[in-house]
């Protein structure tokens, strides 16, 4: 394999792993803010403080892995993508630096206070510290998403003497895809955390342990899970798709497998992607629906894959498959949480053993959906490292021997496998220890 492919592989592996912990924790931090707030109640407060104490242990473990694997990301851009860094540092670097200065300092400093300071500071300050952690992580995500979005829909710059030069910070930060992507990602993280905690709570209910706590947790997370799953379909996911259709039509055509440019474009509900044209076997279509949901008009024209220059097209199978599994999972999340909410309302939830089991087994699914969404977005951005400005291959470091990168890829796989196993082990242990 060549240097570019190996660098991409390494970036793919390290960022997918990093994102697992980030997506759990952004959502979890907001859940903790809420639960700690319930801890102020006069009578039932104690139980919430107990719950928060337990969740904060899980949060601590997750956070450390998130930080440790996050440093890798910032360094890797310079290590493996030196020419991209040199070309776009004026802009991309500013966004990463802002993340560190404005957000990451905040979350890391207050995390220590939150985890270790319960008996050292007044209750209000302690609550403020988790609030700062939650705000810090969310703002942190904003800057990183803004940087990624700039690669997808670059704005606010000119190219002079072979380098991208900042002209408007506002246009860079709020480039056309930042806001849709930000809401889509944060909402995804809230779904991840809701399922994470709801899954743990159903495990506790199935095991007949910590029933009071588990009931409170499952109530909260089914409500949040339902709200955020519905929001994810509409407006957040929907808006993001419209933005892609407008700003990166090649990617959109690949997502929806639109081969010929057409009005009344059908929505493909199911299909088997192939390498032969038009690329989809046995499609199940709803005529006109794609045009309707994208542009609000059944007769709107959508540009097809055939009419773009082939050298500007991303690979077709990976984005199509990832995108569709993500959407399917998204619909599954709504149905699961809706069912749970109905049973909760009818006060029959704890009799539904099979449902609780399903909820427990669903813990990893929102994470899978998030990863698939990112895979669709990033593979769909190819062949560009900065859309229509710089090809991915032109951004890589040239002077590092492929063998060096190959060995670091192997080392990362080994280390991250170890960390992954330890993580699952420790989370299970913390649950056992609590009960």
């Amino acid at each position: 394999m060549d240097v570019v492919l190996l660098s991409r592989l390494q970036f793919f592996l390290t960022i997918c792993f990093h994102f697992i912990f980030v997506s759990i924790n952004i959502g979890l931090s907001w859940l903790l803010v809420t639960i700690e707030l319930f801890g102020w109640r006069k009578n039932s407060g104690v139980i919430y403080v107990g719950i928060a104490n337990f969740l904060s242990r899980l949060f601590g473990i997750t956070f450390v892995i998130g930080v440790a694997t996050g440093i890798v990301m910032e360094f890797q851009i310079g290590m493996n993508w030196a020419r991209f860094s040199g070309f776009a540092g004026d802009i991309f670097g500013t966004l990463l630096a802002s993340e560190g200065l404005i957000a990451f300092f905040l979350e890391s400093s207050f995390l220590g206070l939150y985890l270790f300071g319960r008996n050292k500071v007044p209750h209000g300050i302690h609550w403020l510290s988790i609030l700062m952690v939650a705000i810090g992580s969310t703002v942190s995500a904003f800057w990183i998403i803004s940087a990624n979005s700039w690669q997808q829909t670059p704005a606010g710059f000119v190219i002079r003497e072979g380098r991208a030069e900042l002209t408007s910070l506002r246009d860079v930060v709020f480039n056309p895809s930042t806001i849709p992507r930000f809401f889509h990602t944060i909402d995804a993280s809230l779904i991840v955390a809701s399922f994470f905690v709801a899954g743990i709570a159903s495990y506790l209910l199935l095991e007949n342990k910590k029933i009071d706590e588990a009931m409170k947790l499952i109530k909260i997370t089914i409500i949040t899970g339902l709200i955020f799953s519905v929001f994810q379909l509409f407006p957040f996911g929907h808006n993001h798709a419209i933005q892609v259709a407008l700003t990166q039509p090649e990617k959109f055509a690949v997502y929806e497998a639109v081969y010929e440019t057409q009005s009344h474009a059908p929505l493909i509900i199911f299909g088997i992607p192939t390498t032969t044209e038009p690329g989809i076997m046995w499609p199940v279509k709803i005529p006109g629906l794609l045009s309707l949901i994208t542009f609000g008009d059944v007769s709107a024209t959508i540009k097809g894959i055939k009419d773009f220059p082939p050298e500007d097209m991303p690979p077709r199978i990976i984005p199509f498959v990832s995108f569709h599994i993500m959407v399917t999972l998204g619909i599954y999340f709504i149905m699961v949480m809706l069912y749970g909410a109905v049973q909760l309302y009818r006060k029959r939830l704890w009799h539904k053993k099979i449902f609780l089991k399903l909820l427990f087994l669903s813990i990893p699914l929102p994470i899978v959906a998030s990863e698939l969404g990112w895979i669709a977005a990033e593979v769909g951005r190819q062949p560009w490292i900065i859309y229509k400005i710089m090809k991915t291959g032109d951004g890589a470091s040239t002077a590092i021997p492929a063998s060096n990168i190959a060995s670091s890829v192997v080392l990362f796989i080994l280390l991250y496998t170890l960390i992954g196993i330890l993580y699952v082990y420790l989370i299970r242990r913390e649950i056992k220890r609590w009960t």
Partner: protein
Amino acid sequence: MDLNTIWFLLTGVFLTGYAILDGFDLGIGILHLFIRKEQDRLINMRAISPLWDGNEVWLIAGTGSLFAVFPLAYATILSAFYFLFIMLLFSLIFRAISIEFRNKESSQKWQHFWDRGFGLGSLTASFIFGVMLGNIINGLPINKEGIFASDIILLLNPYSIMIGLLILTIFTMHGGIYMTLKTDGVLQEKMRRSVFISWIAFIILYSSAIISTLIISPIMFDGLLNRPLSFVLAFIQFATTIFIVMAIKRNRFISAFVSSSLLIAATICLLGLSLFPLLVPSRIDLLYSLTIYNAASRPYTLFVMLIIASISFPLVIAYSVYVHRIFKGKVDTSEEEGY
């Protein structure tokens, strides 16, 4: 003073902040390898567990700022030291999870494994920082294109290994001094002794480093001799070095900690003064060196970054000081483990 110079200074501030704060963290990690008693290890790790994460952000924010204001230096250094950075990242990851995982299990085997991870991770990380620094002082084989890569073997030359050991020693001394503040009794006595040992090692290594630099890279001193400030800084180095032992002998640990922080700051200032206006000297031809001008972002980015930094810096310092103050004083292990 132009924006490029201001950012050169601010990069020094990041480096100093990181070296002082994560320096004691890393030093405590190195000392961890020499602590045998269970209870003492617990105290040692507890001394930094609420703080290390905030301290490490200085590295992240500093690297991010380097990326923004001197992107070509960022790209060159990170890709040139590819394998050193891989090793650094692995050490930092291992160290971080060791701190977090150690007390999650009560079995001895488990705890000893993570004790070692914490110690070795800190040791390697400090050493690699020094090796990188040594290579930068020595100059990198930068050609006209500016971007290159070096072999790991070439990067681990005797000079850079010596600088690696020097940094390791400074951090160990600094961490030892910090621990005298956080402990009492037998452990405190042990930490006091460690400061004396690392102090002697520091004197030997630092003198050898100066002599070797004179031989290998005499241009490092050109800048210093023409700038009177360097004599002031050298005096501060000298005075603080002497003061550290005096203060430790008299059990004035806070003064000792302030002096070793000042020592670190003065050393970085001297380094900056001798490099200025270079960021990374080229060994092939000084003309190819990366300077604060040819490696910098455009003025508008430098200006925007300055605004961002001047808004966030005071806030960062305010709440860092606040959090550090809450955890000041001797380590308390009476509470339930962990949280």
